[in-house]
Protein backbone atom coordinates (compact mmCIF):
# COMPACT_ATOMS: atom_id res chain seq x y z
CA UNK A 1 0.00 0.00 0.00
CA UNK A 2 1.35 3.42 -0.92
CA UNK A 3 1.58 5.82 1.94
CA UNK A 4 0.09 9.25 1.74
CA UNK A 5 3.59 10.69 1.76
CA UNK A 6 4.74 9.07 -1.47
CA UNK A 7 1.48 10.04 -3.10
CA UNK A 8 2.11 13.65 -2.14
CA UNK A 9 5.63 13.39 -3.45
CA UNK A 10 4.35 12.00 -6.73
CA UNK A 11 1.90 14.82 -7.01
CA UNK A 12 4.62 17.36 -6.29
CA UNK A 13 6.91 15.72 -8.82
CA UNK A 14 4.15 15.75 -11.36
CA UNK A 15 3.44 19.38 -10.63
CA UNK A 16 7.07 20.40 -11.08
CA UNK A 17 8.38 18.06 -13.74
CA UNK A 18 5.23 17.12 -15.52
CA UNK A 19 3.27 13.96 -15.83
CA UNK A 20 1.39 12.21 -18.59
CA UNK A 21 -1.40 14.76 -18.57
CA UNK A 22 0.39 18.08 -17.95
CA UNK A 23 3.79 19.58 -18.60
CA UNK A 24 4.62 20.48 -15.02
CA UNK A 25 5.57 23.81 -13.54
CA UNK A 26 9.26 23.83 -14.46
CA UNK A 27 8.65 22.90 -18.07
CA UNK A 28 5.84 25.44 -18.38
CA UNK A 29 7.96 28.17 -16.83
CA UNK A 30 10.83 27.40 -19.19
CA UNK A 31 8.47 27.37 -22.14
CA UNK A 32 6.95 30.73 -21.29
CA UNK A 33 10.33 32.24 -20.50
CA UNK A 34 11.74 31.08 -23.80
CA UNK A 35 8.73 32.22 -25.78
CA UNK A 36 8.67 35.61 -24.08
CA UNK A 37 12.41 36.06 -24.69
CA UNK A 38 12.10 35.11 -28.37
CA UNK A 39 8.97 37.23 -28.65
CA UNK A 40 10.83 40.21 -27.23
CA UNK A 41 13.73 39.87 -29.66
CA UNK A 42 11.20 39.40 -32.42
CA UNK A 43 9.30 42.55 -31.55
CA UNK A 44 12.40 44.54 -30.63
CA UNK A 45 12.48 46.57 -33.90
CA UNK A 46 8.85 47.57 -33.39
CA UNK A 47 9.32 48.54 -29.73
CA UNK A 48 12.44 50.48 -30.65
CA UNK A 49 10.53 52.28 -33.38
CA UNK A 50 7.59 53.14 -31.14
CA UNK A 51 9.74 54.41 -28.27
CA UNK A 52 12.11 56.39 -30.46
CA UNK A 53 9.27 58.00 -32.38
CA UNK A 54 7.92 59.45 -29.12
CA UNK A 55 11.21 61.04 -28.08
CA UNK A 56 11.59 64.80 -28.16
CA UNK A 57 14.78 66.22 -29.74
CA UNK A 58 16.31 66.71 -26.28
CA UNK A 59 15.50 63.12 -25.28
CA UNK A 60 17.23 61.91 -28.42
CA UNK A 61 20.44 63.69 -27.46
CA UNK A 62 20.26 62.58 -23.84
CA UNK A 63 22.13 59.26 -23.48
CA UNK A 64 20.30 58.60 -20.18
CA UNK A 65 16.99 58.25 -21.99
CA UNK A 66 16.86 54.78 -23.52
CA UNK A 67 13.46 53.16 -23.19
CA UNK A 68 11.30 55.66 -21.32
CA UNK A 69 11.01 59.14 -22.86
CA UNK A 70 10.73 61.97 -20.33
CA UNK A 71 7.56 63.22 -21.99
CA UNK A 72 5.13 61.98 -24.59
CA UNK A 73 6.23 64.08 -27.52
CA UNK A 74 3.95 64.03 -30.56
CA UNK A 75 5.82 66.62 -32.60
CA UNK A 76 7.53 63.91 -34.67
CA UNK A 77 4.20 62.49 -35.70
CA UNK A 78 2.87 65.91 -36.65
CA UNK A 79 5.85 66.49 -38.93
CA UNK A 80 5.80 62.98 -40.39
CA UNK A 81 2.07 63.33 -41.04
CA UNK A 82 2.68 66.45 -43.11
CA UNK A 83 5.74 65.07 -44.92
CA UNK A 84 3.96 61.85 -45.86
CA UNK A 85 0.97 63.88 -47.07
CA UNK A 86 -0.86 61.31 -45.01
CA UNK A 87 -4.55 61.69 -45.99
CA UNK A 88 -3.80 61.58 -49.72
CA UNK A 89 -1.22 58.82 -49.70
CA UNK A 90 -3.35 56.78 -47.29
CA UNK A 91 -6.34 56.89 -49.63
CA UNK A 92 -4.29 55.99 -52.68
CA UNK A 93 -2.54 53.20 -50.78
CA UNK A 94 -5.93 51.76 -49.84
CA UNK A 95 -7.18 52.01 -53.42
CA UNK A 96 -3.99 50.57 -54.89
CA UNK A 97 -4.11 47.57 -52.58
CA UNK A 98 -7.84 46.87 -52.31
CA UNK A 99 -8.93 47.13 -55.95
CA UNK A 100 -6.30 44.80 -57.48
CA UNK A 101 -6.80 42.40 -54.55
CA UNK A 102 -10.53 42.04 -55.15
CA UNK A 103 -10.02 41.56 -58.89
CA UNK A 104 -7.16 39.16 -58.30
CA UNK A 105 -9.24 37.02 -55.92
CA UNK A 106 -12.09 36.72 -58.43
CA UNK A 107 -9.82 35.78 -61.33
CA UNK A 108 -7.78 33.35 -59.25
CA UNK A 109 -10.95 31.64 -58.05
CA UNK A 110 -11.97 31.08 -61.70
CA UNK A 111 -8.58 29.62 -62.59
CA UNK A 112 -8.40 27.53 -59.42
CA UNK A 113 -11.87 26.15 -60.14
CA UNK A 114 -10.97 25.25 -63.71
CA UNK A 115 -7.87 23.40 -62.52
CA UNK A 116 -9.62 21.59 -59.69
CA UNK A 117 -12.86 20.49 -61.36
CA UNK A 118 -12.10 19.77 -65.00
CA UNK A 119 -9.85 17.33 -66.73
CA UNK A 120 -8.11 18.70 -69.78
CA UNK A 121 -4.93 18.30 -71.74
CA UNK A 122 -1.99 20.44 -70.64
CA UNK A 123 -3.01 20.81 -67.02
CA UNK A 124 0.43 19.85 -65.72
CA UNK A 125 2.05 22.29 -68.09
CA UNK A 126 -0.30 24.96 -66.75
CA UNK A 127 0.69 24.16 -63.19
CA UNK A 128 4.35 24.47 -64.12
CA UNK A 129 3.75 27.82 -65.76
CA UNK A 130 1.84 29.05 -62.72
CA UNK A 131 4.76 27.98 -60.53
CA UNK A 132 7.10 29.73 -62.96
CA UNK A 133 5.24 33.03 -62.52
CA UNK A 134 5.95 32.66 -58.81
CA UNK A 135 9.67 32.14 -59.39
CA UNK A 136 10.43 34.63 -62.17
CA UNK A 137 11.77 37.81 -60.54
CA UNK A 138 9.86 40.98 -61.37
CA UNK A 139 12.89 42.64 -62.94
CA UNK A 140 12.90 40.02 -65.72
CA UNK A 141 9.57 41.28 -67.03
CA UNK A 142 9.17 44.79 -65.73
CA UNK A 143 11.08 46.83 -68.31
CA UNK A 144 9.03 45.87 -71.41
CA UNK A 145 5.86 46.25 -69.34
CA UNK A 146 6.95 49.72 -68.28
CA UNK A 147 7.81 50.73 -71.86
CA UNK A 148 4.46 49.44 -73.11
CA UNK A 149 2.59 51.29 -70.38
CA UNK A 150 4.52 54.41 -71.29
CA UNK A 151 3.45 54.00 -74.91
CA UNK A 152 -0.20 53.83 -73.89
CA UNK A 153 0.14 56.60 -71.32
CA UNK A 154 -0.69 54.28 -68.43
CA UNK A 155 2.38 55.04 -66.33
CA UNK A 156 1.38 56.63 -63.05
CA UNK A 157 -2.17 55.31 -63.34
CA UNK A 158 -3.59 52.63 -61.08
CA UNK A 159 -4.56 50.70 -64.22
CA UNK A 160 -0.93 49.58 -64.51
CA UNK A 161 -1.52 47.38 -61.46
CA UNK A 162 -5.16 46.52 -62.17
CA UNK A 163 -4.64 45.18 -65.70
CA UNK A 164 -2.26 42.34 -64.74
CA UNK A 165 -4.55 41.40 -61.84
CA UNK A 166 -7.47 41.28 -64.25
CA UNK A 167 -5.83 38.48 -66.25
CA UNK A 168 -4.45 36.51 -63.31
CA UNK A 169 -0.94 37.98 -63.37
CA UNK A 170 -1.29 40.06 -60.22
CA UNK A 171 1.23 40.15 -57.41
CA UNK A 172 1.88 36.61 -56.07
CA UNK A 173 -1.21 35.36 -57.91
CA UNK A 174 0.23 31.82 -58.06
CA UNK A 175 -0.31 31.45 -54.31
CA UNK A 176 -3.94 32.51 -54.57
CA UNK A 177 -4.61 30.18 -57.50
CA UNK A 178 -3.20 27.38 -55.36
CA UNK A 179 -5.41 28.35 -52.40
CA UNK A 180 -8.53 28.24 -54.57
CA UNK A 181 -7.37 25.04 -56.26
CA UNK A 182 -7.08 23.33 -52.88
CA UNK A 183 -10.43 24.69 -51.73
CA UNK A 184 -12.33 23.54 -54.79
CA UNK A 185 -10.57 20.20 -54.84
CA UNK A 186 -12.05 19.39 -51.43
CA UNK A 187 -15.56 20.35 -52.52
CA UNK A 188 -17.65 17.13 -52.78
CA UNK A 189 -18.35 16.16 -56.38
CA UNK A 190 -21.81 14.92 -55.36
CA UNK A 191 -23.13 18.45 -54.98
CA UNK A 192 -22.00 19.30 -58.46
CA UNK A 193 -23.54 16.16 -59.95
CA UNK A 194 -26.84 16.76 -58.20
CA UNK A 195 -26.97 20.30 -59.55
CA UNK A 196 -26.11 19.04 -63.03
CA UNK A 197 -29.00 16.55 -62.91
CA UNK A 198 -31.25 19.47 -62.04
CA UNK A 199 -30.07 21.06 -65.26
CA UNK A 200 -27.71 23.68 -63.85
CA UNK A 201 -25.07 24.98 -66.26
CA UNK A 202 -21.36 24.92 -65.43
CA UNK A 203 -21.31 28.63 -64.76
CA UNK A 204 -24.37 28.32 -62.55
CA UNK A 205 -22.70 25.52 -60.57
CA UNK A 206 -19.64 27.69 -60.14
CA UNK A 207 -21.53 30.76 -58.95
CA UNK A 208 -24.17 29.08 -56.80
CA UNK A 209 -22.33 26.09 -55.32
CA UNK A 210 -18.58 26.58 -55.57
CA UNK A 211 -18.30 30.28 -54.80
CA UNK A 212 -20.34 30.30 -51.56
CA UNK A 213 -18.34 27.35 -50.26
CA UNK A 214 -15.11 29.20 -50.94
CA UNK A 215 -15.86 32.15 -48.67
CA UNK A 216 -12.91 31.44 -46.33
CA UNK A 217 -10.55 31.17 -49.29
CA UNK A 218 -11.82 34.51 -50.55
CA UNK A 219 -11.30 36.24 -47.22
CA UNK A 220 -7.80 34.82 -46.81
CA UNK A 221 -6.82 35.64 -50.39
CA UNK A 222 -8.14 39.16 -50.21
CA UNK A 223 -6.52 40.10 -46.91
CA UNK A 224 -3.15 38.62 -47.86
CA UNK A 225 -3.35 40.20 -51.24
CA UNK A 226 -4.11 43.59 -49.69
CA UNK A 227 -1.13 43.28 -47.36
CA UNK A 228 1.23 42.24 -50.14
CA UNK A 229 0.04 44.91 -52.54
CA UNK A 230 0.29 47.51 -49.79
CA UNK A 231 3.88 46.56 -49.01
CA UNK A 232 4.95 46.12 -52.62
CA UNK A 233 7.27 48.94 -53.66
CA UNK A 234 9.40 47.57 -56.49
CA UNK A 235 6.59 47.59 -59.04
CA UNK A 236 4.71 50.58 -57.63
CA UNK A 237 7.79 52.79 -57.80
CA UNK A 238 8.37 51.83 -61.43
CA UNK A 239 4.73 51.94 -62.56
CA UNK A 240 3.23 54.71 -60.44
CA UNK A 241 6.03 57.21 -59.82
CA UNK A 242 4.94 60.62 -60.98
CA UNK A 243 1.29 59.68 -60.68
CA UNK A 244 -0.48 57.93 -57.84
CA UNK A 245 1.61 58.17 -54.67
CA UNK A 246 1.30 55.39 -52.10
CA UNK A 247 2.43 55.49 -48.47
CA UNK A 248 5.44 53.17 -48.83
CA UNK A 249 6.53 55.09 -51.95
CA UNK A 250 6.42 58.32 -49.98
CA UNK A 251 8.31 56.69 -47.12
CA UNK A 252 11.01 55.51 -49.52
CA UNK A 253 11.81 59.14 -50.36
CA UNK A 254 11.06 60.51 -46.91
CA UNK A 255 14.37 62.36 -46.49
CA UNK A 256 13.97 64.15 -49.79
CA UNK A 257 10.35 65.07 -49.08
CA UNK A 258 11.26 66.28 -45.61
CA UNK A 259 14.01 68.52 -46.88
CA UNK A 260 11.68 70.02 -49.46
CA UNK A 261 9.31 70.96 -46.67
CA UNK A 262 11.90 71.97 -44.08
CA UNK A 263 15.06 73.05 -46.00
CA UNK A 264 18.06 72.00 -43.86
CA UNK A 265 19.91 75.34 -43.90
CA UNK A 266 16.84 77.38 -43.08
CA UNK A 267 15.03 75.69 -40.18
CA UNK A 268 16.28 75.79 -36.59
CA UNK A 269 18.06 72.80 -35.12
CA UNK A 270 14.96 71.26 -33.54
CA UNK A 271 13.21 71.04 -36.87
CA UNK A 272 16.03 69.17 -38.60
CA UNK A 273 15.33 65.65 -39.74
CA UNK A 274 16.20 63.11 -37.05
CA UNK A 275 15.65 59.41 -36.57
CA UNK A 276 12.58 60.00 -34.39
CA UNK A 277 10.78 61.75 -37.24
CA UNK A 278 11.80 59.05 -39.70
CA UNK A 279 10.56 56.31 -37.39
CA UNK A 280 7.30 58.20 -36.80
CA UNK A 281 6.85 58.14 -40.55
CA UNK A 282 7.60 54.41 -40.59
CA UNK A 283 5.09 53.80 -37.85
CA UNK A 284 2.39 55.84 -39.60
CA UNK A 285 3.15 53.74 -42.65
CA UNK A 286 2.45 50.41 -40.95
CA UNK A 287 -0.32 51.65 -38.65
CA UNK A 288 -3.23 50.83 -41.03
CA UNK A 289 -1.85 47.32 -41.54
CA UNK A 290 -1.39 46.83 -37.80
CA UNK A 291 -5.01 47.85 -37.21
CA UNK A 292 -6.18 45.48 -39.93
CA UNK A 293 -4.03 42.72 -38.49
CA UNK A 294 -5.38 43.05 -34.97
CA UNK A 295 -8.98 43.16 -36.16
CA UNK A 296 -8.60 40.21 -38.52
CA UNK A 297 -5.82 38.33 -36.74
CA UNK A 298 -7.77 35.06 -36.56
CA UNK A 299 -8.04 35.07 -40.33
CA UNK A 300 -4.33 35.65 -40.68
CA UNK A 301 -2.99 33.11 -38.23
CA UNK A 302 -5.51 30.41 -39.04
CA UNK A 303 -5.43 31.08 -42.76
CA UNK A 304 -3.33 28.10 -43.66
CA UNK A 305 -5.49 25.65 -41.74
CA UNK A 306 -8.68 27.18 -43.08
CA UNK A 307 -7.68 27.00 -46.70
CA UNK A 308 -5.81 23.73 -46.37
CA UNK A 309 -3.08 24.98 -48.68
CA UNK A 310 -0.61 22.46 -47.27
CA UNK A 311 -2.90 19.59 -48.25
CA UNK A 312 -0.72 17.10 -50.09
Amino acid at each position, binding site marked *: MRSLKTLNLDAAKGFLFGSRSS*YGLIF*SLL*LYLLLIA*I*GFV*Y*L*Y*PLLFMLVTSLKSPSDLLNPMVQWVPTELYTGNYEKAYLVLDYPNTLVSSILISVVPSLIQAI*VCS*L*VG*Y*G*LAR*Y*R*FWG*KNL*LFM*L*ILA*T*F*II*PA*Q*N*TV*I*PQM*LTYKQFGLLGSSLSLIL*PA*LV*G*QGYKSAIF*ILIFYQTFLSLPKVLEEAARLDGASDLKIFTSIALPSAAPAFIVSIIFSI*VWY*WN*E*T*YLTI*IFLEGGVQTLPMQ*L*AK*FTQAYENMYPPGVVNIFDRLNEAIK*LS*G*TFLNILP*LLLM*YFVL*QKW*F*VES*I*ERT*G*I*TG*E
Partner: protein
Amino acid sequence: MNLPRFFRNEMRHSTREALYGYGFVFIWVIGFAVFTLAPLAQTFYYSLNQVTVSATEIHLDSVKWANYTRALFTDPNFIELLVGYIIQTLISVPIIIIFSMVIALFLNLGFKFKGLFRTIFFLPVVITSGPVIAELTSQGATSAPGIAQSAAVTEFLMQLPRYLRNPVEYLLTSFILILWFSGVQILIYLASLQKIDKNIYEAAAIDGASPWEAFWKITLPSLSTTTLINAIYTIITLSHFSENKVIKYVSGQTYAVDGGIGYASAMSFIYFSVLVALLAIVYLFITMQSKKDAE
Protein backbone atom coordinates in the same frame (compact mmCIF):
# COMPACT_ATOMS: atom_id res chain seq x y z
CA MET B 1 -23.93 -3.31 -77.58
CA ASN B 2 -23.25 -0.23 -79.57
CA LEU B 3 -19.64 0.25 -78.78
CA PRO B 4 -18.70 2.99 -81.28
CA ARG B 5 -21.59 5.13 -80.21
CA PHE B 6 -20.79 4.65 -76.54
CA PHE B 7 -17.25 5.60 -77.35
CA ARG B 8 -18.35 8.70 -79.23
CA ASN B 9 -20.47 9.83 -76.31
CA GLU B 10 -17.53 9.35 -74.01
CA MET B 11 -15.37 11.43 -76.31
CA ARG B 12 -17.95 14.13 -76.44
CA HIS B 13 -18.23 14.21 -72.71
CA SER B 14 -14.51 14.55 -72.14
CA THR B 15 -14.14 17.10 -74.93
CA ARG B 16 -16.95 19.08 -73.44
CA GLU B 17 -15.31 18.90 -70.01
CA ALA B 18 -11.97 20.00 -71.43
CA LEU B 19 -13.61 22.91 -73.25
CA TYR B 20 -15.23 24.15 -70.06
CA GLY B 21 -11.94 23.70 -68.23
CA TYR B 22 -10.16 25.79 -70.83
CA GLY B 23 -12.95 28.32 -70.47
CA PHE B 24 -12.13 28.79 -66.81
CA VAL B 25 -8.35 29.01 -67.20
CA PHE B 26 -8.40 30.86 -70.55
CA ILE B 27 -8.11 34.28 -68.95
CA TRP B 28 -4.95 33.24 -67.12
CA VAL B 29 -3.34 31.87 -70.29
CA ILE B 30 -3.97 35.18 -72.08
CA GLY B 31 -2.57 37.07 -69.12
CA PHE B 32 0.47 34.84 -68.96
CA ALA B 33 1.21 35.40 -72.63
CA VAL B 34 0.74 39.17 -72.45
CA PHE B 35 2.13 40.07 -69.02
CA THR B 36 4.74 37.37 -68.39
CA LEU B 37 5.88 35.45 -71.45
CA ALA B 38 6.08 38.35 -73.91
CA PRO B 39 7.89 40.70 -71.50
CA LEU B 40 10.22 37.87 -70.50
CA ALA B 41 11.13 37.19 -74.13
CA GLN B 42 11.45 40.91 -74.77
CA THR B 43 13.76 41.33 -71.77
CA PHE B 44 15.91 38.50 -73.06
CA TYR B 45 16.03 40.18 -76.47
CA TYR B 46 17.02 43.48 -74.81
CA SER B 47 19.77 41.68 -72.94
CA LEU B 48 21.45 40.89 -76.28
CA ASN B 49 21.33 44.51 -77.37
CA GLN B 50 22.47 47.96 -76.48
CA VAL B 51 19.16 49.72 -75.84
CA THR B 52 18.74 53.46 -76.19
CA VAL B 53 15.37 54.94 -75.36
CA SER B 54 14.57 58.31 -76.90
CA ALA B 55 11.36 60.28 -76.63
CA THR B 56 9.96 58.77 -79.81
CA GLU B 57 11.45 55.31 -80.17
CA ILE B 58 13.50 52.51 -78.69
CA HIS B 59 16.72 51.95 -80.58
CA LEU B 60 18.44 48.55 -80.48
CA ASP B 61 22.05 47.73 -81.39
CA SER B 62 22.90 44.07 -81.34
CA VAL B 63 25.87 43.35 -79.11
CA LYS B 64 25.43 39.53 -78.89
CA TRP B 65 26.54 38.31 -75.45
CA ALA B 66 28.59 41.40 -74.55
CA ASN B 67 26.20 42.45 -71.78
CA TYR B 68 26.56 39.05 -70.16
CA THR B 69 30.35 38.96 -70.39
CA ARG B 70 30.47 42.49 -69.01
CA ALA B 71 28.34 41.52 -66.00
CA LEU B 72 30.29 38.34 -65.34
CA PHE B 73 33.86 39.39 -66.08
CA THR B 74 34.19 43.18 -66.16
CA ASP B 75 31.76 44.65 -63.64
CA PRO B 76 33.40 44.34 -60.21
CA ASN B 77 30.23 45.19 -58.27
CA PHE B 78 27.77 42.75 -59.80
CA ILE B 79 29.69 39.56 -59.09
CA GLU B 80 30.47 40.70 -55.55
CA LEU B 81 26.80 41.47 -54.87
CA LEU B 82 25.75 38.20 -56.47
CA VAL B 83 28.15 36.17 -54.34
CA GLY B 84 26.98 38.11 -51.28
CA TYR B 85 23.38 37.28 -52.15
CA ILE B 86 24.17 33.57 -52.56
CA ILE B 87 25.99 33.44 -49.23
CA GLN B 88 23.27 35.38 -47.42
CA THR B 89 20.57 33.14 -48.84
CA LEU B 90 22.45 29.98 -47.92
CA ILE B 91 22.90 31.32 -44.37
CA SER B 92 19.36 32.59 -43.97
CA VAL B 93 17.49 29.55 -45.28
CA PRO B 94 18.67 27.06 -42.60
CA ILE B 95 18.19 29.67 -39.85
CA ILE B 96 14.65 30.43 -40.99
CA ILE B 97 13.79 26.76 -41.43
CA ILE B 98 15.12 25.72 -38.02
CA PHE B 99 13.66 28.76 -36.24
CA SER B 100 10.22 28.36 -37.76
CA MET B 101 10.23 24.62 -37.05
CA VAL B 102 11.17 25.18 -33.39
CA ILE B 103 8.56 27.90 -32.93
CA ALA B 104 5.93 25.74 -34.64
CA LEU B 105 6.81 22.82 -32.34
CA PHE B 106 6.38 25.14 -29.34
CA LEU B 107 3.11 26.52 -30.60
CA ASN B 108 1.85 23.03 -31.27
CA LEU B 109 1.97 22.27 -27.53
CA GLY B 110 -1.17 23.07 -25.59
CA PHE B 111 -0.69 26.05 -23.26
CA LYS B 112 -2.34 29.30 -22.31
CA PHE B 113 -1.83 32.44 -24.45
CA LYS B 114 -0.92 30.31 -27.44
CA GLY B 115 -2.99 32.57 -29.65
CA LEU B 116 -1.12 35.63 -28.41
CA PHE B 117 2.25 34.12 -29.33
CA ARG B 118 0.94 33.05 -32.71
CA THR B 119 -0.15 36.63 -33.30
CA ILE B 120 3.31 37.91 -32.34
CA PHE B 121 5.19 35.52 -34.58
CA PHE B 122 3.08 36.25 -37.58
CA LEU B 123 3.08 40.03 -37.16
CA PRO B 124 6.18 40.79 -39.29
CA VAL B 125 4.59 39.24 -42.38
CA VAL B 126 2.01 41.99 -42.30
CA ILE B 127 4.40 44.92 -42.03
CA THR B 128 7.52 43.90 -43.97
CA SER B 129 7.88 46.24 -46.88
CA GLY B 130 11.09 47.46 -48.44
CA PRO B 131 11.02 51.06 -47.13
CA VAL B 132 10.01 49.98 -43.61
CA ILE B 133 12.87 47.49 -43.44
CA ALA B 134 15.26 50.05 -44.91
CA GLU B 135 14.33 52.55 -42.19
CA LEU B 136 14.60 50.02 -39.39
CA THR B 137 17.94 48.70 -40.64
CA SER B 138 19.41 52.17 -41.00
CA GLN B 139 18.49 52.89 -37.37
CA GLY B 140 20.20 49.69 -36.25
CA ALA B 141 16.94 48.26 -34.97
CA THR B 142 17.24 44.93 -36.78
CA SER B 143 20.44 43.67 -35.17
CA ALA B 144 20.35 41.33 -32.24
CA PRO B 145 19.81 43.85 -29.39
CA GLY B 146 23.05 45.30 -28.11
CA ILE B 147 25.31 42.82 -29.88
CA ALA B 148 26.32 44.35 -33.17
CA GLN B 149 27.27 47.71 -31.66
CA SER B 150 29.48 46.46 -28.85
CA ALA B 151 33.22 47.08 -29.13
CA ALA B 152 34.19 43.46 -28.53
CA VAL B 153 32.16 42.32 -31.51
CA THR B 154 33.59 44.99 -33.78
CA GLU B 155 37.06 43.96 -32.66
CA PHE B 156 36.27 40.30 -33.32
CA LEU B 157 34.95 41.12 -36.79
CA MET B 158 38.16 42.95 -37.67
CA GLN B 159 40.14 39.79 -36.92
CA LEU B 160 38.17 37.67 -39.36
CA PRO B 161 39.28 37.23 -42.95
CA ARG B 162 37.20 39.18 -45.43
CA TYR B 163 35.27 36.23 -46.85
CA LEU B 164 34.13 35.29 -43.36
CA ARG B 165 33.60 38.83 -42.10
CA ASN B 166 30.76 39.72 -44.44
CA PRO B 167 28.53 36.73 -43.63
CA VAL B 168 29.15 37.05 -39.89
CA GLU B 169 28.48 40.77 -40.00
CA TYR B 170 25.30 40.14 -41.97
CA LEU B 171 24.21 37.60 -39.40
CA LEU B 172 24.77 40.02 -36.52
CA THR B 173 23.29 43.14 -38.06
CA SER B 174 20.26 41.48 -39.66
CA PHE B 175 19.55 38.77 -37.15
CA ILE B 176 16.00 39.87 -36.35
CA LEU B 177 15.34 40.60 -39.97
CA ILE B 178 16.20 36.99 -40.85
CA LEU B 179 13.78 35.79 -38.18
CA TRP B 180 11.14 38.18 -39.49
CA PHE B 181 10.95 36.19 -42.69
CA SER B 182 9.71 33.12 -40.80
CA GLY B 183 6.05 34.05 -40.28
CA VAL B 184 4.42 32.16 -43.12
CA GLN B 185 6.79 29.23 -42.65
CA ILE B 186 5.76 28.89 -38.98
CA LEU B 187 2.12 28.66 -40.01
CA ILE B 188 2.86 26.10 -42.72
CA TYR B 189 4.80 23.95 -40.23
CA LEU B 190 2.05 24.33 -37.66
CA ALA B 191 -0.61 23.20 -40.12
CA SER B 192 1.31 20.08 -41.08
CA LEU B 193 2.22 19.28 -37.45
CA GLN B 194 -1.47 19.22 -36.68
CA LYS B 195 -2.00 16.69 -39.46
CA ILE B 196 0.33 14.08 -37.97
CA ASP B 197 -1.71 11.26 -36.49
CA LYS B 198 -1.54 11.41 -32.68
CA ASN B 199 -1.89 7.61 -32.48
CA ILE B 200 1.60 7.13 -33.92
CA TYR B 201 3.10 8.95 -30.94
CA GLU B 202 1.07 6.87 -28.54
CA ALA B 203 2.15 3.65 -30.21
CA ALA B 204 5.77 4.79 -30.10
CA ALA B 205 5.46 5.71 -26.41
CA ILE B 206 4.07 2.26 -25.64
CA ASP B 207 7.05 0.74 -27.45
CA GLY B 208 9.27 2.72 -25.12
CA ALA B 209 10.32 5.59 -27.39
CA SER B 210 11.28 8.78 -25.57
CA PRO B 211 9.82 12.11 -26.80
CA TRP B 212 13.32 12.89 -28.14
CA GLU B 213 13.35 9.73 -30.26
CA ALA B 214 9.78 10.33 -31.31
CA PHE B 215 10.78 13.75 -32.64
CA TRP B 216 13.61 12.40 -34.81
CA LYS B 217 11.82 9.25 -35.93
CA ILE B 218 8.26 10.51 -36.38
CA THR B 219 7.95 14.28 -36.44
CA LEU B 220 10.93 15.19 -38.58
CA PRO B 221 10.31 12.63 -41.35
CA SER B 222 6.63 13.66 -41.51
CA LEU B 223 7.70 17.25 -42.02
CA SER B 224 10.10 16.64 -44.91
CA THR B 225 7.69 17.75 -47.66
CA THR B 226 6.78 20.82 -45.62
CA THR B 227 10.44 21.64 -45.14
CA LEU B 228 10.92 21.53 -48.89
CA ILE B 229 7.94 23.84 -49.47
CA ASN B 230 9.19 26.21 -46.78
CA ALA B 231 12.74 26.25 -48.12
CA ILE B 232 11.53 27.09 -51.63
CA TYR B 233 9.15 29.74 -50.30
CA THR B 234 11.97 31.25 -48.23
CA ILE B 235 14.42 31.43 -51.12
CA ILE B 236 11.87 33.04 -53.39
CA THR B 237 10.75 35.61 -50.80
CA LEU B 238 14.34 36.57 -50.00
CA SER B 239 15.26 36.78 -53.67
CA HIS B 240 12.28 38.95 -54.61
CA PHE B 241 12.55 41.30 -51.66
CA SER B 242 12.93 44.85 -52.93
CA GLU B 243 15.73 45.64 -50.47
CA ASN B 244 17.81 42.80 -51.93
CA LYS B 245 21.11 44.39 -52.94
CA VAL B 246 21.31 42.70 -56.36
CA ILE B 247 17.82 43.88 -57.25
CA LYS B 248 18.66 47.40 -56.13
CA TYR B 249 21.85 47.38 -58.19
CA VAL B 250 20.06 46.09 -61.29
CA SER B 251 17.31 48.70 -61.07
CA GLY B 252 19.93 51.37 -60.47
CA GLN B 253 21.80 50.28 -63.60
CA THR B 254 18.62 50.43 -65.70
CA TYR B 255 18.70 54.22 -65.63
CA ALA B 256 22.47 54.67 -65.30
CA VAL B 257 24.32 56.36 -68.15
CA ASP B 258 26.90 53.61 -68.51
CA GLY B 259 24.41 50.82 -67.79
CA GLY B 260 21.13 50.90 -69.62
CA ILE B 261 18.23 48.58 -70.24
CA GLY B 262 20.23 46.01 -72.18
CA TYR B 263 22.81 45.61 -69.45
CA ALA B 264 20.20 45.51 -66.67
CA SER B 265 18.27 42.84 -68.59
CA ALA B 266 21.38 40.69 -68.91
CA MET B 267 22.01 40.96 -65.17
CA SER B 268 18.37 40.09 -64.48
CA PHE B 269 18.76 36.89 -66.44
CA ILE B 270 22.00 35.96 -64.69
CA TYR B 271 20.27 36.61 -61.36
CA PHE B 272 17.28 34.52 -62.43
CA SER B 273 19.50 31.57 -63.37
CA VAL B 274 21.33 31.81 -60.04
CA LEU B 275 17.96 31.78 -58.28
CA VAL B 276 16.88 28.68 -60.20
CA ALA B 277 20.22 27.03 -59.41
CA LEU B 278 19.78 27.78 -55.71
CA LEU B 279 16.28 26.32 -55.79
CA ALA B 280 17.60 23.20 -57.52
CA ILE B 281 20.43 22.77 -54.98
CA VAL B 282 18.10 23.12 -52.01
CA TYR B 283 15.54 20.83 -53.65
CA LEU B 284 18.11 18.12 -54.27
CA PHE B 285 19.63 18.53 -50.81
CA ILE B 286 16.32 18.17 -48.99
CA THR B 287 14.96 15.31 -51.08
CA MET B 288 18.26 13.38 -50.70
CA GLN B 289 18.21 14.03 -46.98
CA SER B 290 14.66 12.77 -46.55
CA LYS B 291 15.41 9.74 -48.71
CA LYS B 292 18.30 8.93 -46.43
CA ASP B 293 15.96 9.22 -43.46
CA ALA B 294 13.46 6.91 -45.08
CA GLU B 295 16.02 4.15 -45.55
